[in-house]
């Protein structure tokens, strides 16, 4: 798990200032919710954590984002390794133009995970498994004895972890684009997990989904936080209340307040926080 710290992070797009002087530490092994009204820089903040913001030509980044002691905006940073460590789920899931199986396999294939690494990963996972998901244990045990089918079993493992296995197990070779949007988002989750990140970033992961799929995603996040640091951007206050352990409130690009969820929601210190939580501003 990673320790993520932001120090004086300031981001501008062209002439507009989107984020101003953000300084905060993101706790490990917890779900941190980033909340605030639309257009306040939440997505920008998230995208700055895996340098996805590099894609936007006009974005200017000042300050530091320190992950595991290294500033990721240092020019010497290995971006590919960074993005392997920090997984990302976008608001609208985009299935890659290939089969469901290949979608999951994509990340490991790109990063060149070979048989031995997969074996080791499976062994490590076995130790981490919590008793809430008993279905996962037999998968891992099978993997140990069937070296030639390692990748298949790994795909199965991640699909189960994302809560999608039962719905797609019979059509792994079918095109991923034919899944419903709720399934596509869970596929995106499985796909992100397959590269073994330590952090998961999620940008409004349920806003495009129906209530049942949304609930499934929230459940998976709560299950996963034991082994991953999760940062979720959401504009749904009730979602933040449901799943967050830590909350960061952004308003007009400024970090207004942050703290453990219980304390944050029951006794906010800033006037703006209080107004937002009570629904006066949204």
């Amino acid at each position, binding site marked *: 798990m990673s320790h993520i710290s932001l120090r004086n992070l300031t981001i501008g797009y062209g002439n507009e200032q989107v984020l101003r002087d953000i300084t905060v530490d993101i706790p490990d092994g917890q779900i941190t919710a980033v909340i605030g009204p639309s257009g306040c820089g939440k997505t920008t903040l998230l995208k700055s954590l895996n340098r996805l913001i590099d894609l936007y030509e006009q974005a200017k980044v000042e300050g530091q984002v320190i992950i595991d002691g290294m500033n990721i905006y240092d020019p010497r940073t290995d971006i*590919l*390794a960074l993005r392997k460590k920090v997984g990302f789920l976008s608001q609208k899931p985009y299935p890659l133009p290939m089969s469901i199986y290949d979608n999951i396999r994509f990340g490991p294939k*790109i990063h*060149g995970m070979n048989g031995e690494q997969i074996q080791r990963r499976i062994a490590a996972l076995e130790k981490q498994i919590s008793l809430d998901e008993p279905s996962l244990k037999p998968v891992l045990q099978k993997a140990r004895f069937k070296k030639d089918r390692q990748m298949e079993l790994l795909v199965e493992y991640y699909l189960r972890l994302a809560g999608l296995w039962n719905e797609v197990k019979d059509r792994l070779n079918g095109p991923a684009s034919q899944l419903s949007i709720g399934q596509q988002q869970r596929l995106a989750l499985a796909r992100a997990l397959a590269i073994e990140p330590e952090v998961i970033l999620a940008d409004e992961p349920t806003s495009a989904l129906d209530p049942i799929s949304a609930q499934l995603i929230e459940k998976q996040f709560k299950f996963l936080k034991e082994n991953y640091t999760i940062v979720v951007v959401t504009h749904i206050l009730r979602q933040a209340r449901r799943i967050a352990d830590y909350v960061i409130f952004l308003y007009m690009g400024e970090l207004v307040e942050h703290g453990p969820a219980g304390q944050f929601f029951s006794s906010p210190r800033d006037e703006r926080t209080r107004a937002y939580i009570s629904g006066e501003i949204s």
Partner: protein
Amino acid sequence: MRLRKLEETFFKGLMIASVSMVLALLIGIILVITLRGASSLNLSMLIQTPKGGYYLGKEGGIANAIVGSLYLSLGATLLSFLFGLPIAFALQKEYTGRSLSNITRLALDILWGTPSIVYGAFGFVVMVYFGLRASLLGGIIALTLLMLPIMTRSIEEVIRMIPLELKETSYALGSTRIETTLKVMFRQALPGITTGILLAFGRGIGDAASVLFTAGYTDHIPRSLFDPVASLPLAVFFQVATPIPEVQQRAYASALILLMIVLFVSIFSRLLSRRFSRHIVR
């Protein structure tokens, strides 16, 4: 890891080489023609028609070809606009159903891709049938066939870019289809249509294959639609084919004149469209 970065660097190198080559070639064309043509370019070339012996290196100019090309292209632009405008507007769904408009678009696509020499050959067939000889009229007809799909496509694209709400507003106020088309759509599309007209004109003035059979060639400026007419592309073509160096040099000068006209029209239409876009409702 290194292999992946190496692969990227390799392909990036190939890409940069490709783009450089494309740029170099274009600039090369303009440079070579300009350099070679400029030396023989003088006022008499522009103003005088070929006197006797012009093709043997004696005096005269290519005014016949310059004026001829202008006559041909203007005539064809006018005709193709007269026919193309209604066709483009007719493709909207209030006038034609989906299958009919799709079939028509397909027919227009085929016409767009038809080589200009086929239009020339067909024009020839028509002329023989009616007992006409190579003339300004024949050239205009062949060029019109060539320009029609280009004109129609440009206008249709402009129409498509007009926001649906504009049309809906007009209908909601109780206007008929033709009233909406003439009073609302046409006005909104006018800037784009102008650009489309210029584009088609530029294409028409440079075409040789369609006028080869149908317009003939002459040293005089035509005085009626039934006289043969010279054109700039053919002037270049015939002059470069002679064995006399002075005449060959004049071919480059003629090419330079043609190039300048085409570049001028191209740049002018671009500037015009940029100026018009400032006021567009989006």
